[in-house]
């Protein structure tokens, strides 16, 4: 389980419009997906608070990279399902990390956009 201090750190960067790249480097690969889930939840909360009834998750999903697309770009031969559920994390830790690095960057940029604040890489 990720520590609240780590959750808070990622949330702080999110609200400050700061890229989480440096934070991700210091996080264990197994913790990345839970942190992503946490931030995704917070992103949804922010989306709903800003956009009210007009908020849709599909809008956010459209602006993120699909797992399918990521897998394609890597030329990975594993079944898509394994990539979606990170089953291959023990064999391809670096790949999982890259996948999330990219996705975190997009999500943070998207939220900065929603919040109307400058996003700093």
């Amino acid at each position, binding site marked *: 389980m990720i*520590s609240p201090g780590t*959750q*808070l750190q990622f*949330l*702080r960067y999110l*609200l400050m419009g700061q890229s989480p790249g440096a934070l991700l480097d210091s996080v264990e690969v197994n913790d990345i997906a839970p942190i992503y889930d946490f931030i995704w939840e917070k992103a949804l*909360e922010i989306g709903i608070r800003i956009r009210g009834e007009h908020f849709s998750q599909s809008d956010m999903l459209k602006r993120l990279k699909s797992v399918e697309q990521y897998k394609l770009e890597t030329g990975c031969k594993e079944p898509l399902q394994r990539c979606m559920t990170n089953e291959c994390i023990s064999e391809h830790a670096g790949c999982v990390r890259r996948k999330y690095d990219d996705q975190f960057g997009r999500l943070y940029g998207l939220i900065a956009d929603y919040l109307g604040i400058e996003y700093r890489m």
Partner: protein
Amino acid sequence: MSLLTVQKDTHRIGEIVVAGPSLPLQKRFITHLCNEVVITNNSTVFGRSKITDELQLFFYGIGEKEQYMDFAWDLVAPKMLGYVLVYDWFEGNGFTSVQQLLNTLSRHVESHGIVVGDIGGMPINIDRAVYESGFSLSSKLYFSLWDSTDKTNAKDVLKILIDSLINHLE
């Protein structure tokens, strides 16, 4: 009535601990919520807020890092309503020490709490609606921003904590 004459046994009291790297911030937070505030010579702040004649909230502001890291959280935790950790939103070192405290606390204490970053009247360009109801970090722990230059804002922070307690009892 002197604060020191309050007899705990005859009143219903809810206790809230306020901690963080900056004692002046804790003091400000407590002052905005309490009609009576006492600062002791060991740099501890005590505040009392009367809800009704029988019901009161006690706020204990504990000093800076040395004090709160060495604080007997294990003794106080079972009795307190919850804790508030305050720090300067823009100050990295303050955040780091709050982070350390939070991690230590979460390993040993399972209490309701809220972490608040004080924006001190500075513009952050984020709509208040985004953070005024707080962000949950777990079922008992929340985060929110607080503007220490707005005297009414501490109440909004406290509401988040009280709401989480009410939800817990439901």
